């Protein structure tokens, strides 16, 4: 593979305002139904269920009445320097140079799970079981997203099929560029508090590229050098500090 840079193309990214997030979980529901995510017999087993978008709960560790709780929705970080892509033996995962989105080719994945070992965000899920959909639910499956078979790894694709759909529409109308609101993943669309913004980080007119300049913006585990394209916003210092590891005495 050639070194692929996308400084000129689109660089889709997400900004999640944690101060607005109520932890309602609607984003995860929207994600699951949009992307044909299968359901385990025992969905309470969170170490084996399929979750492209998972919500972590963090607290400031203080006693009542100073306790604060914040929810961190965690989709795939769609890293600019992805640790998972270079390790995949059959080239089943790849960074699109034109969008910056990390794809996963399910029909090529051999299920070695090396990418899961490489990802520090646990953004990848392996299909330990045959995919199953409770009766009735199979009728809601989306024809735009291929369901995954047992034994392969899957992950958030920033609802890539929505990008394809939006592009087809734009091309039909004779446009090469998408408008800001034409391509939005299901989670961002579903969020009732509009905590999730989405757009092209390379486009200065898009809201996300302005939001990431905020002093309250941060990313998860920035020190590792993975360069995630999912940013978070929080006015709370302890939340920002919780996003990465710091040595005692270090300032965030």
């Amino acid at each position, binding site marked *: 593979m050639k070194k692929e840079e996308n400084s000129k193309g689109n660089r889709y990214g997400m900004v999640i305002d944690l101060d607005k997030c109520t932890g309602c979980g609607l984003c995860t529901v929207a994600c699951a139904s949009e992307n044909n995510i299968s359901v385990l017999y025992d969905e309470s087993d969170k170490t084996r269920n399929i979750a492209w978008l998972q919500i972590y709960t963090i607290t400031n560790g203080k006693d009542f009445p100073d306790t604060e709780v914040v929810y961190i929705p965690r989709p795939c970080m769609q890293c600019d320097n992805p640790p998972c892509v270079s390790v995949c*033996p059959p080239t089943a995962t790849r960074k699109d140079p034109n969008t910056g989105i990390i794809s996963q080719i399910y029909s090529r994945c*051999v299920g070695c799970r090396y990418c899961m070992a490489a990802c520090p965000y*646990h953004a990848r899920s392996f299909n330990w079981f045959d995919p199953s959909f409770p009766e009735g639910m199979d009728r809601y499956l989306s024809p735009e997203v291929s369901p995954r078979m047992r034994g392969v790894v899957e992950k958030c694709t920033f609802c890539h099929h929505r990008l394809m759909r939006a592009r087809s529409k734009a091309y039909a109308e004779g446009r090469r560029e998408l408008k800001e609101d034409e391509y939005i993943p299901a989670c961002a669309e579903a969020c009732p508090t509009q905590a999730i913004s989405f757009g092209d980080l390379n486009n200065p007119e898009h809201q996300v590229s302005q939001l990431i300049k905020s002093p309250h913006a941060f990313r998860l585990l920035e020190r590792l050098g993975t360069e995630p394209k999912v940013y978070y916003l929080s006015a709370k210092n302890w939340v920002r500090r919780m996003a990465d590891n710091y040595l005692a005495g270090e300032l965030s």
Partner: protein
Amino acid sequence: MDLALIPNGVQRCSLKRFVPWMVLWIALISWGLVSAFLCFFKGLNQTNMNHYFAFGLWIVFDLSIIALGAGAFFTGFLTHIIGEVFIYPFRDNLKAVVNAAVVIGFICYSSAIAMLGVDVGQPLRAWFIFWHANVHSMLTEVSFCITAYLGVLTIEYLPLVFSNRKLREIPEIDIFGNNLHHIIALFAAVGTFLSFFHQGSLGGMFGVLFGRPFAFREGFLIWPWTFFLFIHSSIAAGPSFTLLCVWIAQKVTGKELITRDVFNLLAKISGWLLATYIVLKIVDTIAWAYGVVPRAGMSFMDFYQGSYGIWLIIAEIGIFGIIPAIILITPKFRERNDLLIIGALMNVIGIVLDRFVFSIQTLSIPVMPFDKFMSYFPSWQEWGIAIGAIGYGILLFSLSYRYLPLFPQEAEMNPVQVLGRAVTDSGVIKRS
């Protein structure tokens, strides 16, 4: 019944005793086969692996047996390359053990590949790794090298199989075996090249994980330091493992199979390699603790929590590293039988611990500060496949010992006292 197959000039137990011995190991293999069937039929939910522990017992086992199987390529390299052109005593002494080393290597690599076949979620697509190879992945390098090296090991094993008494009676097979054996140095050289690279890339697999500060290492060009440390540790442990296997074979058969000075030489090679490895490993650990770790914002003790505590590093480097190195490099110690075996065994345990630490502990450590420490224990199906592989190894080694001239010194060291039907032609036939 099988007397005609038994090599000339040596004595073997009766088939009546050998069959129950085999049944025991076949039982273990059956456990492995049942487990493998369940994993293929029902999927990897039969294991206790999960999203956190994407690698489990099988990967630890694979890494370990591949490291221990390094005795094959390294003994071959010392005998056929270094021994032929530089240091003649290597050739003369190690010839006694090189056949056994090849069989052990073959067992290790074939069982490792079989286990990997169960470990991948889509075994039928395993060839995609070759066809759609991503040349930047360490795992691609591992896959290519271990597959090619298993081929080389098969070629190295063949002349031995062809030297079976009955097979030698077929002239074509005898000549072909001789011709293969004649250019064995070529295969030993290729095997050495392949082995160096895949032992290294197995280490590189973990060293390149920059998202996992516990495993990540800096390095030289594209190779992290773990690449070189894994090569070094495997050639340190390989001869010790060969030594142990031969010693166990001696105990089981009640015969001396190789002379004591061959044991000594193996221990000496293993010991000096282990000693230099441990020094480099300590340097690497210190450099990591003061480099990678603080840069990731973590402290050394962050990595040693829960069931995978600080005892692991003490055990790996101190108890099962420094102590066996001292035992094996000190002539006074390694000349004592008990210390020799303890030293070799501790060396092997140390390397297995190292592989365990890199594959399991790496995954157990939370990198996101709000994530939690995890631990893992394999299911009976996972144990089944690992133990089945051990059963297969012992079975194949026993069959090779019984029917092939595995130890060239055996006939000389154990002259047959009672002439039975097995030794009617008492001359020892050696392959020229």
